[in-house]
């Protein structure tokens, strides 16, 4: 039953990618910006969760909520400081600013607390082995999967059932038309950043609890992988980010399982290249033509 165990390993990893990918895809959907600082919001979230747990002695859930709240504010701040004034600049200018923002956050973190890693306490989540058809499943991975699924359901609810969600969808469809209809575009964009960053913060805490080790540059690789996941699912599409994340996590696990553990990262980026060549719009992406 090795493959079952491998699949569960993959899905737990994938659900973390999915949480990060959601932020990428939402921000891209609304202002067509690939927010490279997103992986670093994830890192900040992991550290806030860590300090909430070790410093204030909180348990997993309150730490998760605090981290999400702080990251939401942090995301809005990034948007207000760095991206808002570039709203009408070229896309490449915004992209480069995003890369700059990412480096700034990483090295500010190193400046503040040093580069040494930190370890999440082992008892944050119940750690029991559950035996399912001969596969050893850790209760932590189930917990993480559950957290991710609940957050995604809440997100679906916000996007499809609330007024703000409607505004978000309207702005992503046509910003100018939305403004003419009386939608406060700036506020809607800020709100999108807040939600995306909150999800990244949640992913950070979940990652810390699952993998134990956090450090200031931890956001780089998961950030890139989440980007691949978002492109795989179709950038701009929310269900696409979820499915893309889980597929990517499973593929990575299966590549390692096949004995090519050193090729795992390569496999993720080969997927990116193949998708960009054969189906740039991704699995759930719509085939839209450039508007003239």
């Amino acid at each position, binding site marked *: 039953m*090795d493959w079952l165990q491998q699949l569960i390993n993959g899905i737990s990893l994938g659900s973390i990618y999915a949480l990060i990918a959601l932020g990428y895809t939402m921000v891209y959907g609304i202002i067509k910006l690939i927010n490279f600082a997103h992986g670093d919001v994830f890192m900040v979230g992991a550290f806030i969760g860590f300090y909430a747990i070790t410093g204030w002695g909180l348990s997993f859930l309150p730490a998760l909520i605090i981290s999400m709240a702080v990251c939401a504010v942090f995301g809005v701040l990034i948007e207000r400081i760095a991206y808002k004034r570039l709203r009408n600049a070229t896309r490449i200018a915004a992209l480069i600013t995003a890369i700059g923002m990412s480096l700034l956050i990483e090295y500010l973190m190193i400046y503040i607390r040093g580069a040494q890693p930190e*370890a999440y306490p082992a008892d944050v989540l119940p750690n029991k082995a559950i035996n399912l058809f001969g596969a050893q499943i850790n209760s932590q991975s189930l917990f993480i999967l559950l957290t991710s699924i609940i957050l995604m359901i809440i997100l679906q609810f916000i996007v499809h059932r609330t007024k703000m969600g409607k505004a978000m969808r309207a702005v992503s469809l046509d910003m100018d038309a939305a403004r003419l209809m009386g939608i406060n575009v700036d506020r809607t964009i800020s709100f999108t950043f807040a939600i995306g960053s909150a999800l990244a913060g949640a992913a950070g805490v979940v990652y810390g609890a699952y*993998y134990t080790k956090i450090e200031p540059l931890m956001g780089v690789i998961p950030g890139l992988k989440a980007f691949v996941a978002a492109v795989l699912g179709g950038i701009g599409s929310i269900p696409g980010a979820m499915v893309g994340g889980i597929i990517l996590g499973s593929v990575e696990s299966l590549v390692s399982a096949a*004995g090519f553990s050193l090729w795992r990262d390569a496999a993720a980026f080969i997927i990116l290249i193949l998708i960009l060549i054969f189906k740039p719009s991704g699995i759930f992406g719509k085939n839209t033509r450039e508007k003239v």
Partner: protein
Amino acid sequence: MKKKFSKVFMVSALAAGILAGCSGGNQASGGDGGNSKDFKLGVNMELSGNVASYGESMTKGVEMAVSEINKAGGVEGKQIKVVKVDNKSEAAEATNGIIKLTSQDKVNAVIGAATSGNTVAQAQIANDTKTVLMAPGGTSPTVTVDEKGKVREFVFRTSFIDPFQGTVAANFALNNLKVKDAAIFSDNSSDYAKGLSNAFKETFKKAGGKIVKEESYVAKDTDFRATLTNIKAKNPSFIFIPGYYEEVGLIVKQARELGITVPLMGADGWDSPKLVDLAGADALNNTYLINHYSTEDPDKKVQEFVTAFKAKNNGDAPNAFNALGYDTVYFLADAIKRAGSTDSVKIQKELAKTKDLSLVTGVLSLDKNHHPIKTATILEYKDGKQVFNTKINP
């Protein structure tokens, strides 16, 4: 026009300045510093980055030995003055660091770095400028011997070498733990881990053991579950994991979560208080590591060092890196004393002749490749504490 001229002038002045700086650096090299009243000791260590905890520990040991020696009158009547640079755990920064130390600070000798890779990155400069480079913990053979098999004249080390550790691990597994089949899970991105796993494999196979599975990972990985599941499928009765604590901590934790209960073993790369944080005390039960020394060693020299260190560091017991840093200074001081001079070339000759020098981490003799032949200690983790298991002599 005028503006343009001044710009051109500035650029050429700058270029001249840089060139002057370079030639100045070259002339200054060789640095025996015979006239100054201090003996300048450069310390090029990992004070931040991936393996900062090694670098910081060694620096602490170095500083303690230096202050002891200075109190006792210094070396050849000179006080030792430490000049520190941080190589950020990166090879390129380590090279920059030694260039700065030899050309700007004009040090008499350099100690560093904590890992083999960062020490090799400095070896060329040390040889070119004829500056003695002392590596406290570079366990790779390549630290003192280059890829063509030629000895790096000016590079020395205090620790034993990787093949030696791999051999010790294989012998311990075969003779003490009585296992016949083992798996290896090694860090593919470090020469250190590769050296260890090769030596382990060779010794283990020669003695009739069987390697049932060989897997590797890359530093910075965080998810090892897939590969560990593969290893588990082969049912090895022992897993050798040469690597550094950052990944090893996660590997041990994830291995235990997947239900791998067999003994796990590593080498000195495991030795960090962070390992217990990362893996958790329970997961570390039934794991072993090779180390340079143990604080529980009843040897008198060790106990004196432990007491002195505790008195200086709020009761914290010294780890092996503290001890190696400390020993490295005494190793150097011993050679200076025999040379009767602080001239680097004379010190170099005496260092190479070191024999049966008694240090905290064991009795040390150098072979012709500058490889120390010395004692290894096996420690076992019990509830998050390292417990002295046995001592293996060469």
